[in-house]
């Protein structure tokens, strides 16, 4: 018993000692404070309490340009800037920010006659963003403000109105009823308006701890039809998320049924079934939502059922259970966002004929045939609801020409006639209807429109796309980002190219796919996945029989101003070491400072990741660069290999990044080769840490080999270093001229 408790006690003592030791280590840990990208660690005298950063109140106020007042009697510090007033009292956990009071674990501390305040709370009170990465904290002025979040187009679009767009992304959510949008370096505007929640969706906004990032979480009542290809768009300063339209109302009124949605939708597929006798209406890309059903007693429809028949692709199914011998038909000219199904009658089909690649027939009512293509064998199917065959409608019209073998017509069921056009090869089609002099309606289905040629050519500096059609085609081209892609919708076109016959990806095109976006009207969608940011130029008319466009790597507009120079290694990490003991870290820092001086003199804003012989991790280098939102990142190194014979100059860029790093690498490598006259080892693509994770155009330079005795002597000489720095400077200048 006695021994056990002694053990316990000594255990507790040990734990207490460990805690003490670790807390004192924490207190001694160097915290670095960056305000708007500038390292103000020395001025701010930061230290940690409860893992919270405390800084000198006076230095902080000075940096922000806030007025500071000290009321000794009540031990209260007051900070005042523009229309923000913050009051802190010693030993009082409440911080007053204007007319709000927040409770904080950390408050005003007086130490050696100096006041220290909790940085996160106070900076936040002044509207600054707080980002922390390890022991580096960053106070950033928001780059953008979110002003309003609202539904547009009747709830089909979510619009995030900002004063300026800062980097954003849709992050994946395991919950299919949820969308998460993250926006960096942004804050809510003072008069932010949330006009968003309705009966199908609600929105939550949260700040991501330590990341200066706002997270918008949209929760839906149903699975959210967030569309990949039309996911998010930039529209001036707005971010726009598009949703599919949803059903709003179904109402029987004056002998007709109206199906209304909150957005435009495609023409449905309609078919009749028996036992019980019913009409099935499948509407693509329409979502089931809460909707009103108004179905008074009537002679046509007994009952209506609505379901989300499919999610991929999205199809809404409406089933109308019909009374006997009552006919319903689609109103061909339904107003936008709605579908009208009206009382109809049995229609007679007459005079089925074929000429000039056209299938022609007439009906005594203005019906709309349901037309679609089938393959194996290729055929075009025309379904006519509420129709019976009349005169001149043989079971088979033999044609036997290049495109069409024959046309069959048959009674599909009591109320549907089906016309099948047997094709020798695929064909697109175009349906038109006109009224004849005798009051009947003539239907003309022209068989045309297929893709005759499709080429993708890599022309080194650009990639050319060429598509030719058999008929005049209307098309729409959209350029989309994240990921970068070009979408071409070909109207009236049925996809006639097998996947295996698509051209191979080439040049800037990483991947391509073609699909039938819709059948009625037929629209074929071509999506080109690009390997990065790009621009395109169209050199054909629209509509036309050809699309010719050229794709070029685009230059991302670089928002940042600062050029970041990163001298590799440092502190306990010497980098490579030469035979005479020359250390890489020293070469890197000296050349980096020379580059900085040249750039500063030319009027550029430059930051070095290290100014002294200190160690900083690769992550800290990247964090600093991203924090400052630099324009360019240039990492300077000297190379090494096992063998002393290895020699030369090389430059790296990270291939996966969406910016102009490749161009920057090319230009600097050219300049270095011209100036240093070393062996050209080339511009190399590799995901090295600092160039992979920095958000801006970034390169890593290996000037020459420290491990090569001759190059070591060169690297040691001041003249060689001057030449290297000047070459890097010239490369940067050329790059800036080319991209501006």
């Amino acid at each position: 018993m006695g021994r056990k408790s002694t053990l316990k006690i000594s255990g507790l003592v040990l734990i207490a000692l460990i805690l003490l030791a670790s807390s004192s280590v924490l207190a001694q840990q160097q915290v670095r404070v960056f305000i708007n990208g500038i390292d103000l660690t020395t001025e701010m005298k930061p230290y940690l309490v409860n893992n919270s950063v405390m800084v000198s109140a006076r230095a902080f106020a000075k940096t922000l340009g806030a007025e500071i007042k000290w009321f000794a009697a009540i031990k209260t510090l007051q900070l005042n800037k523009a229309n923000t007033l913050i009051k802190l009292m010693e030993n009082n956990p409440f911080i007053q920010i204007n007319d709000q009071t927040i409770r904080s674990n950390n408050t005003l501390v007086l130490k050696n006659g100096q006041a220290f305040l909790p940085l996160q709370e106070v900076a936040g009170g002044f509207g600054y963003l707080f980002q922390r990465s390890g022991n580096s904290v960053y106070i950033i002025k928001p780059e953008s403000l979110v002003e309003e979040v609202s539904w547009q187009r009747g709830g089909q679009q979510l619009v995030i109105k900002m004063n300026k767009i800062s980097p954003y992304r849709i992050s994946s959510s395991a919950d299919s009823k949820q969308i998460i949008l993250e926006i960096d370096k942004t804050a809510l505007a003072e008069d932010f308006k949330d006009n968003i929640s309705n009966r199908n969706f609600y929105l939550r906004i949260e700040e991501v701890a330590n990341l200066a990032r706002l997270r918008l979480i949209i929760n839906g009542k149903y699975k959210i039809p967030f569309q990949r290809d039309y996911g998010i768009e930039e529209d001036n300063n707005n971010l726009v998320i598009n949703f599919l339209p949803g059903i709003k109302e179904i109402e029987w009124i004056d002998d007709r049924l109206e199906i209304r949605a909150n957005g435009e939708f495609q023409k449905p597929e309609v078919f009749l079934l028996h036992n019980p006798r019913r009409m099935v209406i499948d509407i693509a890309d329409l979502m089931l939502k809460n909707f009103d059903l108004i179905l008074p007693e009537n002679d046509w429809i007994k009952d209506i059922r609505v379901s989300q028949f499919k999610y991929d692709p999205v199809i809404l199914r409406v089933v109308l259970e019909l009374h006997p011998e009552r006919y319903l038909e689609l109103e061909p000219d339904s107003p936008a966002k709605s579908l009208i199904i009206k009382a109809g009658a049995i229609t007679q089909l007459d005079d089925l004929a074929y000429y000039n690649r056209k299938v022609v027939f007439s009906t005594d009512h203005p019906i709309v045939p349901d037309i679609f293509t089938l393959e194996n064998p290729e055929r075009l199917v025309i379904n006519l609801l509420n129709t019976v065959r009349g005169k001149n409608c043989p079971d088979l019209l033999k044609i036997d020409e290049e495109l069409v073998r024959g046309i069959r017509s048959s009674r599909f069921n009591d109320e549907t006639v089906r016309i099948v056009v047997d094709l020798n090869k695929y064909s697109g089609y175009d349906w038109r209807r006109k009224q004849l002099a005798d009051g009947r309606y003539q239907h003309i289905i022209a068989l045309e429109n297929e893709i005759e040629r499709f080429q993708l050519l890599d022309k080194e500096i650009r990639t050319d796309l060429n598509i030719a059609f058999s008929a005049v085609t209307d098309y729409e081209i959209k350029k989309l980002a994240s990921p970068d892609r070009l979408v071409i919708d070909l109207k009236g076109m049925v996809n006639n190219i097998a996947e295996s016959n698509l051209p191979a990806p080439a040049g800037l095109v990483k991947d391509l796919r073609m699909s039938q976006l819709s059948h009625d009207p037929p629209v074929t969608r071509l999506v080109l996945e690009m390997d990065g940011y790009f621009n395109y130029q169209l050199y054909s008319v629209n509509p036309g029989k050809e699309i010719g466009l050229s794709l070029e790597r685009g230059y991302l507009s670089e928002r940042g101003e600062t050029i970041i120079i990163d001298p590799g290694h440092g502190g306990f990490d010497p980098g490579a070491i030469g035979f005479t003991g020359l250390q890489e870290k020293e070469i890197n820092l000296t050349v980096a400072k020379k580059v900085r001086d040249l750039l500063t003199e030319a009027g550029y804003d430059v930051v070095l990741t290290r100014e002294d012989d200190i160690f900083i991790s690769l992550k800290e280098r990247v964090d600093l660069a991203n924090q400052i939102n630099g324009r360019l990142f240039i990492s300077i190194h000297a190379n090494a290999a096992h063998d002393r014979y290895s020699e030369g100059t090389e430059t790296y860029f990270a291939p996966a990044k969406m910016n102009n790093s490749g161009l920057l690498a090319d230009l600097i490598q050219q300049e270095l080769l011209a100036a240093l006259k070393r062996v050209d080892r080339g511009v190399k693509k590799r995901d090295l840490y600092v160039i992979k994770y920095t958000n801006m155009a970034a390169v890593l330079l290996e000037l020459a080999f420290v491990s090569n005795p001759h190059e070591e002597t060169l690297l040691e000489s001041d003249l060689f270093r001057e030449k290297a720095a000047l070459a890097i400077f010239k490369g940067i200048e050329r790059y800036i001229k080319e991209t501006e």
Partner: protein
Amino acid sequence: MKIKNKLVITVFILIAFAIAFSFFQRNDRTEKQEELEKVLVFFATRDAMYLEAEERAVNTSALYRNTMEELINGPANSTLSPTIPEGVKLLNLEVEAGTALLDFNRALAENHWGGSTGETLTIYSIVHTMTQFPPIKKVQILLDGKKVETLAGHMDLLAPLEPDHHLIKKPQ
């Protein structure tokens, strides 16, 4: 006495034969178990531009580990350079869901000569040597059992690496 001695000697000789015989037999058996397999081991070219393979026959009893030992031992051909520094030991080797986890002692970083080129060739000589075996698609390098940010200050070692065929010297 004499007879006794003779008997003792005979017994000794018999025992000696028995031991020798069983020894030979065992040797025979072990040789049968030692099946050799031809593998590729990737080293750096002397200009440090590429990786080039040497063929080795290694014992299949611990195929992956024996292949790595050949890489650690360095090239036989004088036109190639070693990629693994002095004093490096492979502490552990496991394959999990297509990723080989290779745990080296810290000598791999501490004795490394550095350079983006040097580091790249070291890492990818390991990656290419390991991924020649079809079950291995990626390689994760650990030092003393832990993931590290980098080996020599350039490459990102936090995530597993796949082979990069641009580094393999094409036959002339």
